[in-house]
């Protein structure tokens, strides 16, 4: 982090001619605690999410190490359960979501010609709520009973029976939710109120559009999750019976409330990823994005549909056939706007002058593997098939294709793409390509075989398995270790680039045409667009 700080410090000295708070600004650690600058906060979000990514990844390594052989070798079943739980929670709420909020902080003001976010002080709050939440999650391993082994979905009635680790997890989710809601309100206000003159909504870069839609999804769905875990908390300690059948409640109700949040959450993760890819693919195709307006409408309709399909996560809980049919058809309907988006990305590349630097490779990896994950999603959407595949490794494979190869690869594409703009340094292209090829190969080694395991009936979240699953699990574990090491390699690439990367040219990607590339120097100075540009 100190290297990043130096970079900003230099930028600050070099470009700061607007007589400002420079000499009042605290230095060192306090600078980061008190900062209200969107670039500082974006940097902190990105480093925090990367730390959480390594933490969640370490838990995935423990899971795969235990599953390398049938039988119990390394951990106890209870600890294994808490590993699957916190791996999911940390990756979703600690790694992927803050990573894209980090992108939003860095990019949205620069892309719409705003000087900063609309509420800089609240922005600081949004970030600094995250470390306490992470500490609560870690602390839950240290209390009697250990971490909650309930799965990241935190289904009742298991959650009403767990030890105090569950309470810490519930509070962590509350805090993470507050952080997300404040961040979203900030993003919506920035986009709606602070655009430069001439920057109409339909001229905004697609990344900004996707974040506007995502922020609305967050404001509408995060409070519902907060409600669900609050009910769990009052069931545990205050004698309510929302989910307790003995008191007239119903555990299935929890699943409905959770997935009313949970399905929009899937798109909260995926839609900013769409946005990053929609910036990267045109830049390396040297063509404008094909079907810009249809991209906006497709993203919006995905967002609206995401609130109407939640029960496809719970076909087997007992639901009228009419309900199953409705949720099946509504789910399949989402394939239409998603198909529009994939078509547009491919059409953007059609007859473009393509080059394949690391950001483009990750964007293409995203496109290929996200589409594969979408197909398995269609398979799972069919009620009759899902009854067979519910809670098997087929589901695990499916959502890792859309979460890892989708959201994570897109985040990698974004980091490599904007790295020169943020730091003024170039990463090592050869190493970046190595990172891509190692990631995509080991990713598929890890997760492709899990489709077969799931079809053969191996259940998820279980530390032991029948002997016939051994070979596929060993392949998957080897892939996972390789994938994990590849991400440590990514950390090396980034640190090397910050320390000793070559100086980045003003416009490292000749197809990039958004405001931060065309109107700002590289690296971007500490304060940008204090006088808004005019967009024609």
């Amino acid at each position, binding site marked *: 982090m100190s290297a990043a700080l130096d970079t900003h410090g230099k930028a600050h000295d070099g470009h700061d001619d607007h007589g400002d708070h420079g000499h009042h600004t605290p230095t060192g650690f306090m600078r980061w605690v008190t900062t209200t600058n969107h670039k500082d906060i974006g940097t902190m979000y990105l480093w925090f999410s990367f730390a959480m990514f390594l933490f969640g990844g370490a838990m995935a390594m423990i899971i795969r190490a235990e599953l390398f052989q049938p039988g119990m070798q390394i951990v106890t079943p209870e600890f294994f359960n808490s590993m699957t739980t916190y791996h999911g929670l940390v990756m979703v709420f600690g790694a992927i979501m803050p990573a894209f909020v980090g992108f939003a902080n860095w990019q949205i003001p620069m892309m719409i010609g705003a000087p900063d976010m609309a509420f800089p002080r609240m922005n600081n709050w949004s970030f600094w709520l995250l470390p306490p939440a992470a500490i609560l999650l870690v602390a839950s391993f240290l209390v009697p009973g250990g971490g909650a082994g309930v799965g990241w979905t935190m289904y009742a009635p298991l959650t009403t029976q767990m030890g105090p680790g569950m309470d810490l997890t519930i509070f962590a989710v509350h805090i993470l939710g507050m952080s997300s*809601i404040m961040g979203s*309100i900030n993003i919506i206000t920035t986009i709606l109120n602070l655009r430069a003159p001439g920057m109409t909504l339909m001229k905004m870069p697609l990344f900004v559009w996707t974040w506007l839609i995502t922020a609305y999804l967050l404001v*509408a769905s995060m*409070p519902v999750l*907060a*409600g669900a875990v609050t*009910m769990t908390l009052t069931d545990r300690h205050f004698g309510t019976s929302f989910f307790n059948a003995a008191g007239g409640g*119903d555990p299935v109700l929890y699943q409905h409330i959770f997935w009313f949040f949970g399905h929009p959450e899937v798109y909260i993760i995926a839609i900013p990823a769409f946005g990053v890819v929609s910036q990267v693919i045109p830049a390396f195709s040297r063509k404008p994005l094909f079907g810009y307006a249809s991209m906006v409408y497709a993203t919006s309709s995905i967002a609206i549909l995401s609130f109407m399909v939640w029960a496809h996560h719970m076909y087997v809980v007992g639901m009228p056939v009419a309900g199953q049919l409705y949720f099946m058809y509504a789910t399949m309907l989402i394939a239409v706007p998603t198909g529009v988006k994939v078509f547009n990305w491919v059409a953007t590349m059609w007859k473009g002058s393509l080059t394949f630097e690391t950001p483009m490779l990750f964007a293409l990896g995203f496109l290929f593997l996200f589409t594969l994950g979408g197909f398995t999603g269609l398979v799972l959407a069919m009620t009759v098939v899902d009854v067979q595949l519910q809670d098997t490794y087929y589901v695990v494979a499916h959502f890792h294709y859309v979460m890892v190869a989708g959201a994570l690869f897109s985040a990698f594409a974004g980091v490599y793409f904007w790295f020169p703009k943020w730091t003024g340094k170039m990463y090592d292209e050869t190493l970046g390509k190595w990172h891509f090829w190692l990631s995509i190969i080991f990713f598929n080694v890890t997760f492709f075989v899990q489709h077969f395991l799931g079809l053969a009936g191996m259940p998820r979240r279980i530390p032991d398995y029948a002997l016939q699953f051994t070979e596929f699990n060993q392949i998957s574990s080897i892939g996972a270790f390789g994938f994990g090491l590849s991400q440590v390699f990514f950390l090396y690439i980034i640190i090397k680039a910050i320390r000793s990367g070559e100086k980045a040219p003003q416009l490292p990607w000749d197809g990039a045409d958004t405001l931060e590339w065309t109107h700002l120097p590289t690296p971007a100075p500490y304060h940008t667009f204090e006088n808004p540009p005019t967009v024609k």
Partner: protein
Amino acid sequence: MSAADAIVNANRLLLRKLLVVSVLMFGFAFALVPFYEKICEVAGLRDIFRSDEVAAKNTQVDMSRSVLVEFDSNTQRLAWTFRPLALGLAAHPGAVMQVEYEVRNTLDRPVTGQAVPSYGPQRAAQYFRKLECFCFQQQTLAPGEVRRMPVVFVIDPDLPKDIGTITLSYTFFEVAGTQKRPG
């Protein structure tokens, strides 16, 4: 009012609106509770509170046929002796019948057990209505205690005609973690 002030005011207004949306959505989670109960009621799911209109029908005893009910008893890793006092009886569907089982704790410590019923053929289960059964709660037996326990049941007259014999089998399991540790 300057342009900067206008933006600050517009920002604050939007902040307030979005906070209201967040609070409303938090309330929406709680509004889903009665909504869910209504949907379940309309769809006829989750009818645990529905009173037993079937019981009224049971007073019509079907004298035209009788079903042979056989009784079976097992224990699973539990040193109790457990047997029915009658091996079987003939019952008219709709008639209230009573049988007794006897159980003895052969251990020198108090043990808590739970009986789990099963039926052969399996599809007879839904027509076999138990009004009173020792399997409704856990049974704790003192060392050496012998207990006779009744089962009162009615066979639903809707029982398919091709089922002539029903086997009712109970298995007693020890309820783990309930025995008192010495000291």
